[in-house]
């Protein structure tokens, strides 16, 4: 079966509001940029994979309304809808369709225009209607429970979590597409920001963004013609945790879905020392504590070592393994596109097209993860070398 690579990416400037454009116009910005980056036109695209959480804007089956926005008329179109992971789920779908030999060039795209809806109102309905909705409604309540149990297990301090917030928003200043760019943010600012649900403060949490992302994938033989340095999809994995939080009380200190995915990816790629072997990681960190927990579960540091990891400087832009040089989810979160942005950012690093936040010229191996559902994980490893 053919190998598959990313040959172009495109994003909007992510923003708190986009009153200047409607949904199709905003989505088309990212699609046009990805096609242009890949050097292809709609006529050369074989199929479209689209991801979005349509209930967030009170929409339904919006792939039909938007079909012409992403040039799907006359073509195969598949819509994915898996929550926070939807961007990676959509990219994975495109990867499997190409890998199965069905299509040679696939457009992957997603968006969220949260200012036109009520995302937290919709997210409230992910919980079981009887047991969970009244107690942990929305993303913030769920994350507060997870973060506090993780902090209790690992001894992470509020200051260490705040450092993640500072790193993200400063990195975002180097990424012209990022939403929340705060060049002067300090740990004190984070600790002084409003408590949303303890221990999560306003600046510990990802923002509510409006934006879109698109990626073009192509199979072996086509990819090399479209990009001087394609980002090859070298390994892909996904796994779910249990739905009820009560069934996985260590949901953040022992991230079962991430561990499952890590084992599969690291086995396939022969990864034994991820800090040395990865050149960059774009991980889906919905809040500050989660990034440290994910670094532990990805074995970037020993279990319980997340606090020491951020203190060490390793995950900073100039550190040994930059984590989220784009500014991450903490700086940009148009939910239906967020996980696809992780994939696009990892691809941009491998392709050498990340501009001011390029971590080094020769990125050989990059990790992208998606996180959502209720502690679900998707992940992809992208490489500069074609998998053999």
């Amino acid at each position: 079966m053919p190998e598959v690579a990313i040959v172009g990416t495109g994003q909007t400037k992510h923003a708190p509001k986009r009153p200047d454009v409607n949904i199709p116009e905003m989505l088309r910005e990212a699609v046009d940029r990805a096609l242009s980056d890949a050097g292809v036109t709609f006529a050369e695209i074989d199929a479209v994979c689209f991801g979005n959480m349509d209930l967030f804007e009170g929409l339904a089956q919006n792939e039909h309304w938007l079909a012409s926005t992403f040039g799907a008329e006359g073509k195969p179109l598949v819509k994915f809808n898996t929550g926070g992971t939807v961007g990676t789920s959509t990219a994975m779908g495109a990867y499997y369709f190409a890998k199965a030999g069905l299509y040679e060039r696939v457009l992957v795209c997603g968006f969220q225009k949260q200012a036109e809806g009520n995302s937290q109102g919709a997210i409230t309905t992910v919980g079981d209607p009887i047991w969970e909705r009244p107690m942990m409604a929305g993303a913030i309540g769920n994350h507060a429970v997870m973060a506090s149990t993780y902090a209790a297990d690992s001894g992470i301090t509020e200051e260490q979590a705040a450092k993640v917030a500072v790193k993200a928003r400063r990195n975002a200043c180097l990424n012209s597409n990022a939403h929340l760019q705060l060049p002067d943010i300090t740990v004190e600012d984070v600790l002084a920001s409003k408590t949303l649900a303890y221990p999560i403060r306003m600046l510990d949490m990802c923002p509510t963004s409006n934006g879109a992302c698109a990626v073009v994938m192509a199979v072996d033989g086509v990819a090399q013609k479209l990009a001087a340095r394609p980002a090859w999809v070298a390994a892909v994995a996904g796994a779910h945790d249990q739905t009820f939080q009560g069934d996985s009380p260590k949901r953040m200190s022992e991230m079962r879905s991430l561990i499952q995915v890590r084992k599969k990816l690291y086995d396939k790629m022969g990864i034994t020392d991820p800090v040395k072997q990865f050149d960059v990681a774009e991980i889906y960190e919905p809040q500050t504590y989660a990034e440290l927990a994910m670094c532990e579960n990805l074995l970037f540091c020993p279990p319980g070592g997340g606090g020491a990891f951020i203190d060490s400087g390793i995950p900073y832009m100039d550190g040994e393994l930059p984590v989220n040089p784009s500014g991450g989810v903490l700086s940009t979160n148009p939910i239906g596109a967020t996980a696809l942005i992780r994939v696009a950012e990892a691809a941009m690093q491998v392709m050498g097209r990340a501009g001011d936040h390029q971590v080094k010229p020769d990125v050989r191996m990059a990790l992208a993860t998606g996180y959502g559902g209720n502690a679900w994980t998707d992940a992809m490893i992208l490489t500069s070398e074609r998998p053999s």
Partner: protein
Amino acid sequence: MDVAILGIAMSDFAPRPELPPSEVVYPVVKAALADAGISMDDLESIVSCSQDIYDGRTISSMGVNEVIGGYLRSESKVAGDGLLALMYGAARVASGEYDLTLVIAHCLESIGNPHAVTNGSFDPYVQRQLGIDSTVAAALQASAFYARGGLGPDDAAEVSARASAKAVANPRAFRSKAHTAADVAASPVVCGPLRELDGTPITDGAVALVLAGPNRTGDRPVWLRGIGTTTDTFWTDRDLTSVDALRGADARASKLAGLTAADCDVVESASRWAHEQLMHLPALGLDPHADVNPSGGQLGGCPVTVVGLARAAEAALLIREGATNALAHAPSGIANQQHAVAYLSKERR
């Protein structure tokens, strides 16, 4: 494609508002695994198919996560017709990265307000404010189709009557009473020219298939030889009587399968309204009044989202019972914007 259907299970289709999705889905998953002769531990991947708007739950697959084997496995969700989920499941198997893959579609269509739910799929800036819903769009399509001359409401009534007779003989179908073309013509107008008995009763249910690669086909495999889909432009940007997307989907599936509708002894073609079948069958190269849908089809009662996978399941069961080749077809979207077609066979290509 070298993909085999190893396990097949379907629920009855009937309104089940007293049950949560997990309790509709679990018996079907269990039956599909048993039919395939495997346990949940053997599953390598899962593709589910549902729609948040119908379930009233964001990430509708979360409500069935454990019962479909999602825990610690790669599960993904297609929001669309069940044949698209089958296409994704088949791609996962054909990619060589997964073998045993469960495809499961579920929908509790009866628990929502059909007008509000389908109104949500129109463009939010202009059309939705007009109060339009999928029934109105289907009625406009039927009017345009009848205005072309040739076939008319009497033909649709015959399609509906034939479907009801077959559904009565199918224990899974909802309709338990056959009606005549005269009954259709005497039934209340829902939205002119559509009458109540031109349409599909609203039901709930689930369908599951277990897919496998060529090395693990069991002793009675059904081969998924080809599957394809094509979408068209949004309903207000096209001729509502166009079936170009169906022709496109059929061409893609046919090319992979090396089969056409003419090669098939079973055709399961979904229509929410009877006039659609009159439009669709000629696009497949068949007579509009061809004797299709031995199950009674969607007109016998089958929820949206599930419908395409149900057509494939019915076709696969008939291949097990002796048919040679089968075609499964389902449209989706407003006025059937998108179509998917699958070819099944007892012979591997």
